């Protein structure tokens, strides 16, 4: 494989990863890392470092439009961001000391969790007790829901739990080169009492900053390979754009199932690499 072929193949794989990810509502990182390690033979530390750079591009692109539509709860994002950024820096610093096979095993677990999460039955939101911390920080919000045709107001609950989960999501993001939305969104929705659209938008808003923190660590440490990171960032971003444009009619169950199959297959492959 010549450098030109490598670049074009990586560009194509990243485009598909971004496209599939945005169709089913996850970032591209969860597919880019397995693809780079399993198909392109890139080392897992380097694959994670290149993936996290692409996560900044996709989440910032999407965040710009969510913010414009005023669905994002920016105050809540700012508060939880403190925890995700601390987590991300910790994760990125720890990653250098975790052996490659450990990273493969952790990644396999996250892939399996994501696959399960996508197939789970829809959860029922827990009742939301009053939260003085949310009152003090004025976290409660509202947005105009276009599909309902009305303003949706909500009160935020369990801010401390949200901070704790954000810390964990940040560590996962920094350690594995993924956005971490798969950990935050369920808790924000089911435990904190936030409507799912506001959860997705706010999680996305945080992911750019979270990924920037760990990407800075990886870049300065020399794990980001310009040769690999360039086609990954460009491919994933354009794939996600295409996916967002298609989103209207294509959110079918068959796409979800196909995606879960890809996740499960990658989980097994990554697991094998971890125990070999």
């Amino acid at each position, binding site marked *: 494989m*010549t450098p030109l072929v490598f670049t074009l193949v990586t560009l194509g794989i990243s485009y598909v990863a971004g496209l599939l990810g945005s169709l089913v509502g996850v970032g591209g990182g969860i597919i880019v890392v397995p693809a780079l390690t399993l198909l392109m033979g890139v080392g897992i530390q380097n694959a994670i470092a290149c993936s996290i750079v692409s996560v900044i591009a996709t989440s910032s692109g999407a965040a710009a439009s969510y913010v414009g539509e005023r669905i994002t709860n920016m105050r809540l994002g700012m508060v939880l961001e403190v925890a995700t950024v601390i987590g991300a820096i910790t994760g990125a610093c720890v990653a250098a000391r975790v052996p490659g096979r450990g990273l493969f095993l952790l990644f396999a677990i996250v892939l399996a969790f994501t696959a399960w999460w996508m197939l789970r039955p829809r959860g029922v939101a827990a009742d939301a007790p009053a939260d003085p911390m949310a009152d003090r920080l004025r976290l409660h919000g509202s947005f105009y829901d276009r599909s309902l045709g009305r303003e949706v107001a909500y009160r935020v609950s369990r801010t401390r739990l949200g901070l704790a989960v954000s810390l964990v999501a940040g560590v996962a993001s920094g350690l594995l080169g993924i956005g971490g939305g798969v950990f935050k969104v369920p808790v924000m929705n089911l435990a904190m009492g936030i409507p799912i659209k506001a959860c997705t938008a706010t999680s996305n808003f945080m992911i750019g900053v979270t990924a920037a923190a760990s990407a800075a660590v990886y870049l300065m440490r020399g794990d980001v390979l310009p040769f690999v990171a360039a086609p990954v960032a460009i491919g994933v971003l354009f794939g996600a754009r295409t996916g967002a444009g298609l989103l209207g009619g294509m959110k079918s169950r068959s796409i979800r199932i196909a995606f879960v199959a890809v996740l499960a297959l990658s989980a097994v492959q990554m697991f094998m690499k971890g125990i070999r």
Partner: protein
Amino acid sequence: MRAAPAGPVPRTEAAIGGVLRIGVAVSLLVIAAGTLLSFVQDGGYGTLASDVPRLAGPGGAFPRTGSWLLAGLKDLNGQAVIVAGLLLLIATPVMRVAVSIVVFGRERDRAYMAIASAVLMLLLLSFALGKSG
């Protein structure tokens, strides 16, 4: 009790959305330009299959010093241009946080100014940590 509005004035959203959009577009253009340069330059990516392990292996790291970057940009070295694009991409969310500090300051919202400043400090810290680790 009525819920407070989620965010500050719409102008804020426009400013923050604009920073994100422009930052991503500019950095990706720079990254794409750097990639093209790397393919056509002597001492760039090369055309042989044996060039790939050199570029995609652990040895593909670039010298992470300001002087290498500046000298590389002056000569329009492809890889240096890509690294500049990557730095712009990483700087985009950082700029977003900086803009929000200004916006919260204009609204005299001390608590959120402090929160956003803490995030900015952590982001700057991450560059230093990567360099030393």
